[in-house]
């Protein structure tokens, strides 16, 4: 497999796309599958036109993000392209125009083209609208639709938070409020995921919730219960505290699925970035001693890289909330983390609004995580 990553900060979307694609193709050769991320106020259609004018008939998947991650750091205004090519690589793409087709049902109903492939080198990259609802259910539907044997990676798409309007792209076109998907065959990927938070141990039961809003914890209003555990005086302090102290839902192996509290409602309910099902046991998560959650990044990136002997590309999807939380330390931390990785290994990713991984089995939607996908 050959891979290449290109980045352009040209303000013109088409030019930026062409430039980024050229740069990526210069290293990968004719691509089988291309990844495209935009950051900033680009017209995704123009960008797509520009990229496709270079990559030709290559399959393409991409999305709008808050920032593009490359070896150079985080680019919050630019176009990034990653091309993968090789004789054994095959790919299909799928663009779903709206997440309204996703309900709480688990049954799959997508007409995603799949190819027959022996072995476990089947990976689904999916980029749903990060502001959309019920992404967890979407992932379950995709799993049911695709069938067993697929690994999942990706993340929620976003923007620079000006317009709160996300784009999802494939070689078929652009959509907004939906999801883009690419299935890559023939590349062995290894996956890593982590967040760094630790459980405080005080369990609470979500006694009433609907969608992303949790009304009650342990039978009392959510904020009052949350605040009592953290000694928050009032909701004005919420935003400062909530970023550091997400709720954690128990996962397999003693891991916790984080759920980022976003805002407090007038009724004492708390809106989260992602849904928390009612009758779920949660616990307040706290940063590790010292408060530095960035340490996990190095661990994850390195361990994942180390587990992929034929690494030719590393995808990194890091939660935008971590970017906001760590601030300037984020890029420094990224650079440090990548320092331990072979410098010629292309790195491509984005600041995602939620992360997707099937590291524990079926694909789950994570918050506040860093995921690494290394393949070759």
């Amino acid at each position: 497999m050959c891979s290449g990553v290109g980045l352009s900060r040209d303000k013109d979307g088409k030019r930026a796309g062409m430039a980024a694609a050229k740069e990526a193709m210069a290293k990968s050769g004719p691509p089988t599958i291309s990844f495209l991320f935009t950051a900033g106020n680009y017209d995704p259609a123009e960008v797509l036109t520009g990229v496709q004018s270079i990559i030709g008939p290559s399959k393409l998947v991409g999305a709008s993000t808050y920032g593009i991650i490359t070896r150079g750091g985080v680019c919050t205004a630019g176009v990034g392209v990653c091309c993968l090519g090789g004789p054994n690589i095959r790919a299909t793409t799928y663009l779903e125009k709206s997440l309204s087709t996703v309900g709480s049902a688990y049954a799959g109903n997508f007409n995603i083209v799949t190819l027959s492939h022996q072995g476990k080198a089947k990976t689904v990259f999916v980029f749903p609208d990060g502001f959309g609802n019920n992404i967890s259910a979407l992932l379950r539907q995709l799993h049911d639709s695709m069938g067993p044997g697929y690994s999942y990676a990706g993340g929620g798409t976003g923007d620079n938070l000006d317009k709160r309007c996300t784009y999802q792209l494939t070689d078929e076109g652009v959509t907004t409020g939906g999801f883009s998907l690419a299935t890559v065959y023939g590349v062995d990927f290894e996956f890593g995921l982590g967040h760094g938070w630790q459980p405080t141990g005080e369990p609470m039961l979500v006694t009433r919730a609907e969608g992303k809003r949790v009304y009650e914890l342990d039978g009392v209003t959510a904020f009052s219960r949350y605040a009592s555990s953290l000694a928050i005086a009032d909701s004005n302090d919420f935003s400062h505290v909530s970023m550091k102290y997400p709720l954690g839902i128990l996962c397999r192996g003693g891991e916790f699925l984080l759920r980022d509290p976003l805002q407090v409602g007038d009724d004492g309910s708390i809106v989260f970035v992602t849904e928390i099902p009612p009758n779920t046991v949660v616990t307040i998560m706290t940063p590790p001693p010292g408060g530095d959650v960035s340490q996990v990044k190095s661990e994850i990136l390195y361990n994942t890289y180390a587990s992929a002997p034929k690494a030719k590309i590393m995808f990194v999807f890091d939660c935008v909330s971590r970017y906001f939380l760590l601030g300037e330390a984020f890029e420094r931390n990224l650079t440090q983390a990548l320092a331990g990785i072979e410098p010629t290994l292309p790195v491509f990713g984005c600041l995602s609004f939620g992360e997707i991984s099937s590291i524990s089995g079926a694909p789950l939607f994570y918050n506040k995580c860093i995921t690494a996908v290394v393949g070759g």
Partner: protein
Amino acid sequence: MSQALLELLALYDVTSLSTPKTFEDLFAQLVEKTTRLFGAVGAALVLPAENGQQTVFTWGWKNTKGLFRYPKGAGEHCLVHHFTPKEAGSLYIKCKQALLPEERRLALILAQTVERLIHQRKVEEDLKKAEEEKNLILDSLAEQLFFIDGKQRIKWANLSTASAVGLPLGELVGRRCYRVLKGHCGSCRECLAIAVFKSGKAQQGVVISSQGRILDIRSYPMRRADGAFRGVLNTITDITQRVKAEESLRLSEAKYREIVAMLQEGFYEADLSGTIILSNDAAERLLGYEPGQLVGKNFRHIVKNPYTALRIFNDVYVTGRARQGVILEVKHSEGKPRFVEISVTPIKDSTGEITSFCGVARDVTERKRHVEKLEHYSWHDALTGLYNRAWFEQQLKEIDSACYPVTLLMADLDGLRLINDIMGHAHGDELLKACARVFKTSVRATDRVARIGGDEFAAILPKCDEDVAEIVLKRIRRTLSEHNSSNPQFLLSLSIGAATSHGDSSLRQTFKKADNRMLGDKLLRSLKQKNQLIEGLAATLAERDYTTRLHVERLAELCPRLGRRLGLSKEEQEDLALLARVHDLGKVGVPPDILFKQGSLTPEERAIMEQHPEKGYRIASSSPNLVHVARLVLCHHERWDGGGYPLGLRGKEIPLECRILALADAYDAMTSDRPYRRAMSQREALRVIRECAGSQFDPQLAEEFIKMMEENEE
């Protein structure tokens, strides 16, 4: 966090499933938890559906074939949990990695929690369904149904109650029944519910509502299992239509009974066993029963032949069709046989099943007798009671071959026509009856006698050969002779012929043979028979009037004496003497009340009387011994002047003998006592004769007669 605490959290998580609205929701919860807590990549839930099929929820399966069979080598990755009982459902979880013991334990707890929720949901669904069914049933009732507690508050009511009250159902519950249903401020007077409260027993009553509806109200105490009183269940049924229908039915039945009672014909209704369950007075009178006595009687005790009645009723039952005109002989209570004509009509219930019979009955005893009489007369001769010709002809065609040898007798009553002419048909009929009696008493019991013509008789003698026939013939003649000896005024003369067939010839041919033999017999006996007949007639006349016999004797002396004086020949004198004896023979045909009437005859009586010369003429003509004086008999009442009868001859047209007889007959009549006058003297009689000479009498003969009588006197 310690492992124990993590496990505790997991335990808390797996047992925290919300009660789902649907099984899909429950399965979605299951999938969320298993993917998160156990890394499940597949799950399946199989539940039995109501229609016997299975409802299968799957996630992460491409192919459900082989579901719930442990894949080889993948047991550690899977959990299969069968509900209790197994038919209640099964749960399958497939994980990417092998389940650790604590994970398997937690997964099992999750599965059991799911099972419990499903069972609970099923119970709730069954309960809800039962409740819905119950409400559906109760709300579909036309009757009002409502339940009140001890304080008369409505706890539950059905739609009919709400409709009747005119309030929505929700506004009834919780309110006092008397306020809602009646608009009263307090309990109703004679409230059935209160009566139930007090007595603890069900109560029932009928009231008329303000709208004039008739309502049947029933109140029942409702108790808990421990016997504690819960309240009263009330039902209100609008029975207005039913009451009206019952009243209408009652009136209709009364009318029906009245009509039945008024019928002139008998009416009955009987059950399937034939027992009378309803009858009217006319039926009872028909059989001579007192009122009310007929009901309960069975047909087999009423009719003479129960089997016939049974067959008829059975036929109606089997075919379902009514029968009319059935005639049965019944046992009248007084013992005398009666015949009734009945109809039998099946009565069916609403399903078409025959439940009883009904019909009318009329007494046809007289009609039957009349019909039998007509039938009898159609085969019998009315006068003699013997079979008639039609019957005889039928027998000739249909006689059974087992009756052979068969002898046919043919008999003819001689002189019947003459008798009818002279004596009248009544006398002739008596002779025919006498002849029939002779035959009946002479033939065998198996023999059959018929009158096949006016004076013809025939007999069929079955199993009778020539020898037996001869015996029968002799018996007939003997009986005949005995009859004639005892009844000289009804002398019978029969010409008989017989012939026998042994089957070798047709009965028609045999009959012809017998007839021929009868004719032969008649020819042989004809002269003697005629003399016997006339002697019989003369004897009849003499028997009737002794004076006539003396008058005849005197005339038999006078007439020849005058004849001698006039120089008549010997033969003429013999004729004259014979004429004197038989000139009034025709008077045997004159009824005695006319013949011996003392007063004047009416014109009709005179006309009958003046027939006797003609009758005498026919009698004399039929006898060879009298035929030569027949004309003299006919003319013996002619007058010289032509004013006589029956021919109106005058003068010398009248035979001499008749002119002589007229003188002698008149002289003797005048000189004999009559019941209405004394005899004249000779002188007076001769004077009358002289006066009538030239009118009634021949003048010359009158003069000679007078001279003869005067000379005789001297």
